[in-house]
């Protein structure tokens, strides 16, 4: 005769309590987090106060806040910060305008809406390196399709110091607008239909309804989209790295990469990484504050 046991009863026969089972699931994750995230984070914090070079055999010397002082006094790094900030503004506002615009267009009953939405989401599902490489082809001065289509002659998008930043930003906008669109669409479709009916009864114009009803109600979710995109844009590396080497348009993460791996200045690079981290935290904190304010409503 066969007896069947449910998984729980089998575990119970082995004497495993719920807590044991729960721990079995949680411990591996926590262990990985500690080994690969928490430990390096703290270890690199230690490096940031030394002159350690990962390429040399010399022991690390404690230099106190010297690395931080050097970085904050370096005009090249400040230029990188300024470039990054401008890049974040251009890229995120571009994604916001395009993504929210697409969401507004899609937020109505149209045939094939599901398919259309999926197609529009494709760019953000690609690898950034792949995206960067084929946009590099599009931007190519002599045989790229962009110059051909727009009749711009031999405009050197990626090597011109004034254009490179925007060329990368456009690629980023192309890739990540769908993300803003997706979140906006979720926010827009969550606005109850009866509020639009009420607004039309209240004699509000379409524009008035948009600014006074729609926008305030989707603001929280839009802010979430903007927070995500700001953090991501701030640390943009892959797209820019494969597309352009233009030093005038160098983003802070490219600068960081060069310091850490091209020049092997591990100590100062760690210090710079911490400065970037603190900046991103500050910026997101401002958003979170607004978000909480918007959510109170």
């Amino acid at each position: 005769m066969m007896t069947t046991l449910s998984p729980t009863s089998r575990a119970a026969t082995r004497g495993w309590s719920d807590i044991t089972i729960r721990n079995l699931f949680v411990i591996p994750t926590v262990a990985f987090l500690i080994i690969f995230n928490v430990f390096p984070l703290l270890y690199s914090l230690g490096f940031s106060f030394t002159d350690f070079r990962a390429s040399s055999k010399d022991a690390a010397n404690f230099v106190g806040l010297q690395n931080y002082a050097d970085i904050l006094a370096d005009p090249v790094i400040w230029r990188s910060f300024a470039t990054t900030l401008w890049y974040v503004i251009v890229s995120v506002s571009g994604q916001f305008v395009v993504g929210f615009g697409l969401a507004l267009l899609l937020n109505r009953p149209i045939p094939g809406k599901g398919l259309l939405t999926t197609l529009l989401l494709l760019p953000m599902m690609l690898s950034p390196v792949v995206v960067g490489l084929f946009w590099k082809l599009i931007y190519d001065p002599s045989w790229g399709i962009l110059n051909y289509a727009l009749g711009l002659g031999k405009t050197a998008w990626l090597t011109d110091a004034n254009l490179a930043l925007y060329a990368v930003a456009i690629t980023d906008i192309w890739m990540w607008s769908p993300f803003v669109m997706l979140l906006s669409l979720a926010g827009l479709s969550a606005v109850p239909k009866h509020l639009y009916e009420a607004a039309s009864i209240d004699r509000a114009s379409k524009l008035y309804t948009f600014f006074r009803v729609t926008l305030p109600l989707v603001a929280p979710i839009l802010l979430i989209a903007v927070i995500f995109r700001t953090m991501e844009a701030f640390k943009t590396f892959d797209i820019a790295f494969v597309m352009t080497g233009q030093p005038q348009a160098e983003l802070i993460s490219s600068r960081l990469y060069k310091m850490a791996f091209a020049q092997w200045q591990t100590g100062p690079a760690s210090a710079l990484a911490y400065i970037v981290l603190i900046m991103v935290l500050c910026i997101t904190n401002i958003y979170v504050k607004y978000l909480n304010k918007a959510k109170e409503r």
Partner: protein
Amino acid sequence: MAEIELRHIDKHFGPVHVIRDVNLTVKDREFVVFLGPSGCGKTTTLRAIAGLEEIDSGDILLDGKPIQNLSAADRDIAFVFQNYALYPHFTVYENLAFPLRAVGTSKDEVDRTVRSVGKSLGIGHMLNARPSSLSGGDMQRVAIGRALVRRPKALLLDEPIGSLDAKLRETMRVELKRLHFENGSTSIYVTHDQVEAMSLADRIVVMNEGVLQQVGTPTEVYLYPANLFVAQFIGSPIMNISATRISEADGTARIALDSASFELPRELLGMLQQKKAGTDLSLGVRPEGVLLSHDSRAGYQPAEAHIIQPFGSFDIVDLKLGEKTLRARTASGFVTKAGTQVWARIDPSQAHFFDTKSGASLDIRLARDEERSRDVPTPITRQNVEL
């Protein structure tokens, strides 16, 4: 000042014919209630008048001008939604101010109007609150206030107090009546609650399956239902309806209900003949039209009290007449025990006759019975109906 006229309104939702050739005129300053069961088309009709729903054919006229092709915003008709539809991100003040600000009213006037409407609705002290912190009754007051601030030509209300508890509904009903009295705007009110309809309406429009069944004052609709649907929809407890046969005996008309047969005045026979009534006849009598007596009297039939429901000011007693049940309204405590033997008769002035097949009333009105029993509860009044 506004008169609303509906001419041959038709509307389909896919294969469902929701409004069927509706014709109605709502006079200026009138309070009309659309009454009917869920899905009868009353809300759709109301939304069509507001411009929230398009109609397939017909004309909607406001003061003689066709408005069916205007957008909701251009019709100058206010609408109170069942779920209030307050703007959640605005305060009460901003909610009330919205219809005024939307058309660019000056700041001073907005402030003055909002505060005066807030005061008249008793929400003056909560102008800075957000809708989420209000009770259901207060949210409804704000919703009504938002409709009133702009002094609309007409006010449409879609089950505005349907989601409130019984006690609050009663309060709000009186308040709505007072507001209509003060503002006098032409109002159309949708409800499935006949008590609301009876107590608020100047005229009731009874609807079923997209068709107007009867339009009349609450008293007309209650006392002279146009068909079986209206007869059974209006009145609580429900009217007794039974297929019946009528014969003549001993100089009176006798009307058979199962084994028992009740006596009715002889004129009935002539009237039925005049109306060319067929054999498929239904008798309708409201519980208060069933007269009871403790002892045997001329014209009374024996019956057994079966279920007794006390309502405080009166009782509803189900009588067993063979296989049939006849529901009677009695003075409170008239019968106290199930199984008690009583005698019953039918008040001829409260007997309704319908053609069973078409459901239409034969419109036969018999004179009031002179020998009404003293046991009979108070005669029908509006107050009596509003249970």
